[in-house]
Every structure is written in structure tokens, then in C-alpha cells.
């Protein structure tokens, strides 16, 4: 094994110590202390947001990967109009800030479409759309990195476009883009905190609500930081594990 898990642990410890030392501030850890009953209740309330953060991020990333792939494919077409579709989508979607998109989908879309969107789905749609432009660029880069000889070999054994993509190009491209895809997943977990603005009961929203009730922003937001930190460290370990597993078969 290499050294980075230890490195990460050290970083985590460092941040924790810094937070606990409090740089001289007047800390009242009782609000989130697992030793008192009210502290425990507060902690459980904070951690309860984890479910929504995960559900929101994972649903959004799954959708955005699919959209991203569908948008990437015309981007590598030899036909200019198809490439134009890809460019317009990527440029437009990429230009809208995530927060703005969340607000627009939640408050604007119901008026345009005449339907009501739940907080959860508004968040999912906004996050997925916003991320899909980046996924599209990642997939396009991955597909374009596949050696021309692979495509010629697939052609020469009579494979059509779909088979060539499914059996030859995409399996290789996806292995190559796993690191940036992992990046996007981490990014998504963090961006999901923005959905708190429309009232989604995820980690950030719960911290905000607790701060309003307890007036201890430093302690509660420190717990929030640690929650995200832990969550993302675990997720990136998972992504690395998947990378190792998927590249192992080629060795």
C-alpha cells in the first residue's frame, strides 16, 4: 500500500486539533457534545442531513453522467451540425452558476411548465444539468483519447457505430476518465450544499437551522466541515478502489 491514507488521516487530525483548540475563542462544545443529551440530539439532527446529501448527490451524478455521455457523442461526430449541438449545450449550461440554476429550476420551472417541482427534484435537476456539461467534456476527452487504431480495428471486423462504441471505445474511455469522474462526484457532494437555499434538509441546511436555534455558529459549522471532510474522504477512497479494480483486469 502507498502512504496517502495516512496522509489523509493526518490532515483530518490537523484540522480537528485546530478546530478544537479554537484559536482562543470562547468555545461551547456542549451544543454538539455526545456526552449531554441535548448535544446528542443536536448531533443526530445534524447527521440526519447526510441521507439527503447522499441521495441528492448520487441521483444527480447518475443523471448527469447519462446526459453527459449523450451530449458527448455528437461532440465527436464528423458532422458539423451535431458538433454544434454539443458546443451550444456545453457553453450554455456551463455558463450558468449552480446556485442560479437551483433558484431558476425551483422558482421558475413551475411557472414555465405549469407543474410543481419538489425541493428534492428541483435540486437534482439543477445539479444534474449543471454537472452534465462538465461530464460531457470529460467523456469527449476520454473518447478522443482512444487510439485511432482501435477504431480502425473495430471497423475492420465489421462493427457498426453502436457496437464499436459499446464494446471497444467506451469501455476503454471510461477507465481513462474515472479520475475526473471521481472529481465530479466530490464536486457534486459539495455543490449539494447549495440546495439548502431552497430548503432541502441536507447537511448544510440542518447546520443553518441549528445555528439559528443555538447561536453557536463556530461549533456547529466546524462539525459541518468535519462531516463533509469525512464524507468526501470516504467517497474518494471508494473511487480509488474502483479505479484499481477496473484497471486490474488489463494487467
Amino acid at each position: 500500500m502507498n502512504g496517502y491514507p495516512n496522509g489523509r488521516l493526518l490532515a483530518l487530525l490537523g484540522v480537528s486539533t485546530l478546530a478544537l483548540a479554537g484559536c482562543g475563542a470562547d468555545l461551547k462544545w456542549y451544543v454538539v457534545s455526545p456526552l449531554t443529551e441535548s448535544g446528542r440530539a443536536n448531533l443526530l439532527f445534524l447527521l440526519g442531513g447526510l441521507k439527503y446529501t447522499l441521495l441528492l448527490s448520487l441521483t444527480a451524478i447518475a443523471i448527469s453522467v447519462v446526459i453527459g455521455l449523450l451530449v458527448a457523442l455528437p461532440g465527436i461526430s464528423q458532422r458539423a451540425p451535431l458538433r454544434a449541438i454539443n458546443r451550444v449545450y456545453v457553453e450554455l449550461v456551463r455558463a450558468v452558476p449552480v446556485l442560479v440554476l437551483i433558484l431558476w429550476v425551483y422558482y421558475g420551472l413551475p411557472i414555465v411548465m405549469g407543474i410543481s417541482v419538489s425541493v428534492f427534484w428541483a435540486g437534482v435537476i439543477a445539479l444534474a444539468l449543471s454537472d452534465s456539461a462538465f461530464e460531457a467534456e470529460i467523456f469527449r476527452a476520454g473518447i478522443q483519447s482512444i487510439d485511432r487504431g482501435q477504431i480502425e480495428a473495430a471497423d475492420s471486423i465489421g462493427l457498426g457505430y453502436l457496437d464499436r462504441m459499446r464494446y471497444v471505445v467506451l469501455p476503454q474511455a471510461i477507465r481513462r476518465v474515472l479520475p475526473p469522474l471521481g472529481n465530479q462526484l466530490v464536486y457534486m457532494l459539495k455543490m449539494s450544499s447549495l440546495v439548502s437555499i431552497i430548503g432541502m434538509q441536507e447537511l448544510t441546511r440542518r447546520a443553518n437551522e441549528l445555528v439559528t436555534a443555538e447561536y453557536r455558529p463556530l461549533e456547529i459549522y466546524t462539525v459541518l466541515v468535519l462531516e463533509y471532510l469525512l464524507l468526501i474522504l470516504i467517497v474518494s477512497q471508494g473511487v480509488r478502489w474502483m479505479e484499481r479494480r477496473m484497471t486490474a483486469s488489463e494487467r
Partner: protein
Amino acid sequence: MFSGNVFVMEPISIPGASGSAENATPSPDGEPIGRSLVTLERLVKRYGDFRALDGVSLEVSAGERVVVCGPSGSGKSTLIRCINGLEHPDEGRVFVDGRAVRSRGRGATRALRTLRTDVGMVFQQFNLFPHLSVLDNLTLGPMRARGLSRPQAEALAHGYLKRVRIPEQADKFPRQLSGGQQQRVAIARSLCMEPKLMLFDEPTSALDPEMIAEVLDVMSELAASGMTMLVVTHEMGFARRVADRIVFMDAGAVVEDTVPQRFFEAPASVRGAAFLQRILAH
């Protein structure tokens, strides 16, 4: 798109196309007597101002073994890549087994796929699929392009792996094999399509010297089995032993088209003689 291949490929009559494959006799002067399998008519291919092919015509009969040689940049690779539609000539026409190879127009994509199941191609860089096992490399084409079932495709694959003398490597990945073994897998992959014609684009140029022989042996055996072959190579020993005809190209044109003996002993052109001197000198 449900139009059958019969309708999208234009059957045309070619001089000498009526003869059967059995009485095809390789002719010394490039005038095929047997059934013509490949006909190239005045092919021109330009890359910007550079003319990779400058009006090349060529006929290959069923069962013939043709070696194409010439200095680099003479258009050899471009020529054989036009035969399976990996390159499309700017002018001229390509016929394979009596059907015109078309790159544009209605049904062209489908017609190209059908053509490619008839024409095997072996690349200089092998181009095996690195994420698939040797067996999966071999069965992909038969299953997806020829519609065979997995057991059928695997039986076929094991048969051809035996023929290229690596039956025990079926479950390995390409990366685990030597260059020579990889190229033999690539040959087997093409053979699994049971093509009428095999194209080889410098199949030994990326190999270490000690591995060249094992690949050439497999190719010689294939030639002996009666496969029609067009081989771009600098292996003049192989050309002399195996080829029925040598096509010598220079500057995008066919300069000589003759039997090996005549080409090696008394090349008719100055450029041919100069090429031989360079390549045989070392």
C-alpha cells in the same frame, strides 16, 4: 434501414469475372485469368497537395498472393486501406468481389460493414483491444457482425488460435503477450471473420527481429491454404518465397507489377533497382 445488402451494393461486371476460383492461375504479368476479387481503377488520393495515390489500377484474382513494396510514402498503405474502406479515394473506383466500395450515399455505411466482414485487415500496430481477453478479441466480430452465438464464435476462435499456434493463450490479455504473439492473435481475429481476402499493412514492422519469423511463418501457412492475400511488407525473403506477384510502388504509382523472380533478379525500372539495392544491402 431495412434495404438488403444486395440492393445497396451495385453488382457490376468485371472482365474475367465469370471464371471460377478453382481454375484461377496466377499470371506473371498481372493479367488475372481467374475470378477477379479486387479491382482498383485509377485511384487518386490527395492529402492537401500531396498525391498519396496518383492513378493506381490493380487487379487481384482469388487465391493470389500479392506483395506490395516500395519506399515509405509511396502509397502502399493508402492503397490497401482503400480496399476495405478505411480510406476513401478522391477519384477512381474500388471493387471487391464484384461490388463497388462506396463511402457516401444511402446505405453506404451498411455496405461498408458487409464489405469489411469479407476483407480481413492486419495492422502494423496489431490494434488488439487491450481491455478484452484474447478470446473476447476473437469472438467480438463473429458475434456482433456475423451474428454467431457465443459457443459458435468460441469454437471458431479456438480453432484459429490453434492455427496461429497459440491455443493456450485464450484467456490472457493482449498486454501479457509478446509482440509476435499479439500479431498472431490479430491475424486470428481477422480470420475469425472468415474473410475472402486478407490485407496486411506492414505486419512485422513493429516487431523485434526474433519475432518476425513466427509471424511470417503463420502468414506463409495461410498463403499455402489458398487465402487471397495483399501484403505490404519490407520482408523481401517472404516476398520471394510466398508471393505470386510483386507490386512495386513509388510516388503513388505502380512502377512494376511482376513475378518475384523477375523483380528480384532483373527489375525493369531504375527506381525498382535502386529500391532493391537499398533494402537488400544491409
